C-alpha cells in the first residue's frame, strides 16, 4: 500500500486514490488528421518502463483532483509530485542496482543482491 503525497492534501494512504495511467499523454488536437494506426497508438499504447515513470493519479476519496507523480516502478519510490498543468520535473533516474547487470526491463527478480567477492573493494 503506497503512501502518496497528494500535492493538495499531503500524504494519504493509497486506498484514497485511483490510478489514472500514464501522464503527459496529450489527446491529439485534430484526430481526423491522424492515421488509424496513430489513433490506435494514442488510445492503446502506453509505456511500461522498469524505472522512472510519470503517471497520473486522482485523489478520488479526497480532493478529487488529478495530479501527476513520478515513480520508480522497480522500487515504487515516488520521486516527484506535481500538478497536471506543470511540466515534468527533472529527476535523477535512480534505477535499482542489480549486481547481475540485468536489463532495465524484465522479470524484476532482484533475488541476488549479494555483493560478490570479485566486486569487493572495487
Amino acid at each position, binding site marked *: *500500500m*503506497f*503512501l502518496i503525497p497528494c500535492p493538495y492534501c499531503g500524504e494519504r494512504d*493509497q486506498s484514497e486514490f*485511483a490510478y*489514472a495511467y500514464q501522464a503527459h499523454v496529450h*489527446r*491529439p488536437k485534430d*484526430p*481526423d488528421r*491522424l492515421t*488509424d494506426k496513430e*489513433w*490506435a497508438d*494514442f*488510445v*492503446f499504447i502506453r509505456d511500461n518502463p522498469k524505472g522512472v515513470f510519470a503517471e497520473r493519479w*486522482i485523489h*478520488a476519496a479526497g480532493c*478529487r*483532483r*488529478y495530479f501527476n507523480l513520478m515513480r520508480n516502478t522497480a*522500487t*515504487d519510490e*515516488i520521486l516527484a509530485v506535481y500538478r*497536471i498543468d506543470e511540466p515534468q520535473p527533472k529527476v535523477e533516474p535512480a534505477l*535499482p542496482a542489480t549486481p547481475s547487470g540485468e536489463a532495465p526491463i524484465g522479470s524484476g*527478480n*532482484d*533475488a*541476488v*543482491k*549479494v*555483493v*560478490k*567477492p570479485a566486486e569487493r573493494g572495487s
Partner: protein
Amino acid sequence: MSGYRLSDGGLTDRGTTLRFSFDGTAMSGHSGDTIASALLANGVRIVGRSFKYHRPRGLWGAWVEDPNGIVDVAWNGRTTPNLRATTEPLINGQEVRSVNAAPTAAGDRWRKLDLVSRFLPAGFYYKTFMWPRWERYEPRIRALAGLGRLDPGHEPAADCAQVNARCDLLVVGAGPAGLAAARAAAARGETVLLVDDQDAPGGALRWRGGTIAGSDWRDWAEDAVSTIKAAGGRVLFRTTAYGVYDHGLVCAWRRREAGPDQLWRIRPGRTLLAAGAIERPLTFADNDRPGVMSADAALRYLRLYAVVAGRRIAVATNNDAAYPVAAALAQAGADVSVLDSRDDSLAMAECALAVERNTLPSAALGQEDLTGVLAGDLRLEADTLLVSGGWTPTIHLWRHAGGGLRYDERLAAFLPEGGMPAMRVAGAANGAFGLAAALADGHAAGGDDGPAPPVGEGHASYAIRPAWPDPAGSGRAWIDQQSDVTVKDVALAAREGFRSVEHLKRYTTLGMATDQGKTSNMAGLAAMASITGRAIPEVGTTTFRPPYVPVPLPVIAGRRRGQLFNPPKRLELEGRHREAVAGLREYGGWLRPSWYGADGAAAIDAEARAARRAVGLLDASPLGKIEVIGPDAAALLDFECYNRVSTLKVGRARYVLMLTEAGIVYDDGVVMRLAEDRFIVSCSSAHVAGVRMRLEEWRQDRFDPARVFIHDATAHWATIAATGPKSRDLLEATLPALPRQALDLAHMAVTETALDDAPLRIARVSFTGERSYELSVPQSAAAALWDRLTAGLATLGGCRLGLEALLILRAEKGYPIIGKDTDGLTMPHDLGMTGPMKKREDEFAGRRALFTPQARGADRRQLVGLAVDESAEPLPTGAHGYAPSGGRRRSIGYVTSSYLSPELGRPIALALIENGRERLGERIPLVHLDATFEAMVTSPVAYDPAGMRLDA
C-alpha cells in the same frame, strides 16, 4: 521418553494444571507452556511424521524456527490445522494431533515408506505426474504426503480488527539491541513502537541471562519499557512484524491474551530491525532423528519452562554459544558431554565438562529415537544430541524492504550491506553477536552517541568455525526437515542443472515449507556452493518474501468478510420495501427490490402486467444524478457524450451514449437541462462512479476547471418512477398539490417544482416504453412521497415494481443495458444510433475511433431481437448463434437478454448478431452447451414498435 520437567524453576505457572491430549494420550502442562514445551515435559519424542518420507520427527527448535512441530489442534469443538507447537500457547482442553501420521505419530502406518525413499528423489512429483493419465494415481500419492487436515466446520469469526499506527521509530525485537535502541530513542523524546513476538521483553536474555548496568538484566529491561511509555511510545508483545511493504509499511500480527488477534499496519518514520539470530543445524547422517535438537532451543526449554531435553546429552558445536547450554544442562542434572569441531577456544578452555576436540558427529544412531552419536571412530551413547552450527542473522524484514546483503567470512553469515534511509539493523541481526556488542549496536542505532550500558562478564565469544554440509558424506543428511530435502537431493538438483539457488529451491522445495527455511536455507546454499565449486556469496540467497511467519488468514481478512466484504449501497426506502415483502438483491452495487411478495415468479409476472395495463411504482434512486454546472457545462457534456447536448433546450432531456476513446459504448443515460448552465447526467446506476471520474478528468484536463463543476448528487436524492398508462392518474390522485403543468409535461421534458416545502424534480423519462414520470426528491422527503404514491396504487390496479419486472419491460422495448446487451466491441451504430456520427462535426470522446476500418466493417455484431415459437422456452442467455464453417460451428454472436414476456405471451430475446440488421427475418441456428435452437432475427423492439404508448 527423555524430556522431563524439573521440580522447580521456569516461568510457567505451576499453580495451574492444564489438561490436554496428544494423539489421544492424556497429558498435562502449566499455564505459560507452549504445546511444544508441554510435549517435551511429558516425554514425547516423536511429534510428527515428515512430509514426504514419513520419517519420525521430534522438536528441533523452541520458537518460529522449528521445522517439525506442526500439529492440528481441536479446541472448543473446532479444529485448527497446522499450528506450530513451539509458538502455540497451551490451553486447557486442547486435543493435539500430529500431522501426516495415522493413527499416531509414533505408530504411523506409513512409517516403512522411508525404506523406498530412493524411489522418491528430488523432483519426484515433477518427474511422476507427467505419464499418460497421471490423474488416475495422483490422488493416492497425494494422500501419502501433506500436513494438517482442514475442518470444514471451522469458520473463524470475522472479528480481527485492523489497526493503523504511526510512530517516529518502530523497533522490531525487544532483545538487548532492540531495548537499547528503543530506550535511547525514547530518552531523546521520540515516539517509539516496540514489538516483539514473545510475551515479555528480553529476547535471548530471557534464557541466556546477563547483567546490565550493574544489575540483573530484568531491571534494565523494565526501565527501558518505562522510558518508552513515558515518552508516549508503546510496547506490544506477542506481536510479530511479519512483512515490510510499499513505502516502509510494516504489517504486524498481534496475538492477544484475551480477545481476537489484530493486524497492525504501521507507518514508521524509521524502522530498526533487531530480530536477533537463529541457530543453524549441523549436517550429518540421520541428523533428523527425534532427540537431535538445537542447543539454544534446549536452553530455552530449560530456562522458560524448566524442561530438560534429555538425560544423556551430547552437545555438538562449532562455536562458543553452545557452552552455556552444556553448562546449564549439566547443572540441571543431565549427563553432558561436548563435541567441538575446533581445536581450542575461550569457552572450551573454561569448560568444566569433557570436550572431544576436532570432532563433529558423522551420524545419529537409532531408528525411531536417538540412541547414540557416531563421530568418526568415536561412538557415544546419548538420548539427546544438541547441535549448534552457528547463527544466521534474522534479516528477513531488511530484505523485504530491499536492503542488500554481504557475506561475512568471520561470522560465516550474510549481513546487511549498505544503507537505507528508513531502516537500520542492529544487534545479532546485524552481526553484533554477544550481549555487549548487541547492546552497543542497539544503543548507537537508537541515536545515543554516548557509551552503551556496561554488561557483566562471559558474553563475548562466538569464534565460529564453519561446518557446512559435506557432499561426500555418507548416509542421508537432512538439510530441510520440513520439506524432506537431503544433501543428496541438492547434489541431484545440481546434476540435473538446477544450480541457481532459486531453481534449487523450486526443484527440491528446499526452504518452501511453512518454516520458510529459517534453519535450512544457509545449509542448502552452502551445499550447492560446495557441490558446484563456488563460494557461498556467489550462490547467493533466495528472495525473502513476507510473511516472516505463517499469519492466519482471518487476521489478514479482518472484518472484510460476508456482508462487509463488498458492502452494497442501501436505499433510503429499504425499510418500506422490506415491509412490502420485497425480495432484495444486489444490482450494480445497490441492494434493490427484485420483486414484491413471497412468490417471485408470480410477482414478476403480475408487476410487469400491471405496469403495462395500469401503473407500476419503481424505486429508481440509484439512477445517476451527476450535476454539471457552469458556463462551460454544455461544452463539457458535448465532449463527454456521443449525442450533442448543447442544443438541448432548458427543461428538456435527451437520451445519450458515452463512448470510450476506442469508440466503444461505455454507458448510456439521460441528460436533463435545468438551466442554461446546469445539467443533470442521469447515467446507469452501476456506472455513476465511472462517469463522474470521466467527467472530472475531461474537466481538469481539457476545460477551465473554474468554469465547470461536477457534483455527484446520486446519494442525496431519491427517485421514484411511476410508469404505466395510469401513471398520470396516480400522480393526480395522490399528489393533488402538484401543478397542472407538471402533469402535462411532454415526453423527455423536465421541470423543478416543490412538494410539501421540499424540492421536487419531475422528468418524463421512460425505461418501459409506457408513459412515465420520474419524481426526484431529497432523501429526507422520500418516505413521505413513497407513502403517498403507494396509497393510490390499489385503486388504480397498480403495484410496486421490482427490478426483474423492469428488466422484462425494457427488453420488450429493445432498450439495451450497457454491459449486458453490449460488450467490449459494441459501438453506437451497432445499437442503431448513427445520427451523431454522421452529423456531428465537433469533437467528442471516441469519435475518431468510429471511422476506422474495424468500426466500418460489414461484419459487426448488431443488437437485434430473436423470436422463437410462442410455445417454446425462452432461449438461454449466452447461447451462441452460429454459421456452419468447414464442418464446424462459427459463432456469429450470442443472446444477451432473454425473458418470457407476460404481455406478449411469448419468449423474447435480445442478441448481438453479426450483421444482424441485414438478417431481419432470417432463421439462425443457436447452440448452448449441448442443446441447439432455432430463432428468427427480428427488430429488438418486440412491443409497441411505433412508440404510441409513451403518451398513452
